[in-house]
C-alpha cells in the first residue's frame, strides 16, 4: 500500500512540476484586430494578484506630422522566436506568473491597437516592470517594421534606432 501511495504522490508531484514548467504563453502575430481581452484572460492565474495589460495604438499626430494609418511587416518565423524568447527572459527576471504578447501586422488605423502585452504576477510591481521591459525589448529586438502613411500621401519606413547586437543583448 505504501508503495502505491508513494507512486500516486510522485505522480501528483510530477504533475505539479509540469504545471509550473508548462506555463502556456500566448504569442501571436495576426492580421485582424487585436483581441486584447483574450490576451488578458490568457494570463489569468489564481496565484496572481495583479494583471497588467499594455496596448499600443496608432497615434494621429507626432509633433506636426499627421499620420493617416500605419502598416506593419514582419519576419514571422524569427519574430515568433524572439517574442517567445522575451517572455522566457521576463519569466527569469521577475517572479511573474504568466505573460503574453500579440502584434498586428498589415494596416492599422488611427486609435486601433498594433501591439498588446499582458503580464500577471502575485504583486503589481513586477507585472508593471515586466510589461514595460517586454515592450522596450520588443521595440529593440523583434523583427517587425512600421511604415508611416501621412495625410500628404507620403510614406516612409521607420528605421531609426541602432544596429542590434548578436544575442539580442541582456539589458
Amino acid at each position, binding site marked *: 500500500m505504501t508503495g502505491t501511495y508513494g507512486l500516486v504522490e510522485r505522480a501528483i508531484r510530477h504533475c505539479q512540476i509540469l504545471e509550473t514548467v508548462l506555463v502556456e504563453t500566448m504569442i501571436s502575430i495576426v492580421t485582424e484586430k487585436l483581441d486584447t481581452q483574450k490576451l488578458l484572460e490568457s494570463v489569468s492565474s489564481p496565484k496572481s494578484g495583479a494583471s497588467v495589460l499594455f496596448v*499600443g495604438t496608432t497615434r494621429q499626430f507626432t509633433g506636426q506630422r499627421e499620420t493617416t494609418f500605419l502598416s506593419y511587416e*514582419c519576419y514571422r518565423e524569427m519574430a515568433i522566436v524572439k517574442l517567445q524568447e522575451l517572455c522566457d527572459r521576463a519569466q527569469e527576471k521577475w517572479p511573474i506568473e504568466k505573460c503574453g504578447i500579440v502584434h498586428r501586422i498589415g494596416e492599422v488605423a488611427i486609435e486601433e491597437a498594433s501591439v498588446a502585452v499582458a503580464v500577471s504576477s502575485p504583486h503589481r510591481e513586477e507585472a508593471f516592470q515586466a510589461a514595460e521591459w517586454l515592450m522596450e525589448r520588443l521595440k529593440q529586438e523583434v*523583427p517587425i*517594421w*512600421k511604415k508611416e502613411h501621412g495625410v500628404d500621401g507620403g510614406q516612409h519606413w521607420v528605421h531609426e534606432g541602432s544596429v*542590434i*547586437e548578436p544575442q*539580442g543583448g541582456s539589458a
Partner: protein
Amino acid sequence: MKVRLKVFAAAKEIVGLGYVDLELTDGARVCDLKTALVQCVPELRALVGRSAFAIDQRYASDSDAISEACEVAMIPPVSGG
C-alpha cells in the same frame, strides 16, 4: 554556394522582391555576404551598414559562418510596437 537572403521593409522595397540570390564562396561569413550583397544591389549600401543579419532566426555577427542550408536574413533597424 548559393544563398537566398531574405530582405524586409525598406530593403525589400529597394530590391523589389523579398529575397536576393547570392553566390558565395564556401565557408563565407556574414561580412562576405554583406560585400556580395552591396556588389549585387549597390542601392542597399547605406541600409546594409545600419542593419543586423540573422542566421536561422538568430542575430549573427560579421564573423559567423554561413552554409548553404542556412536561412539568412537582412534585418533593417526594427520598429515594431
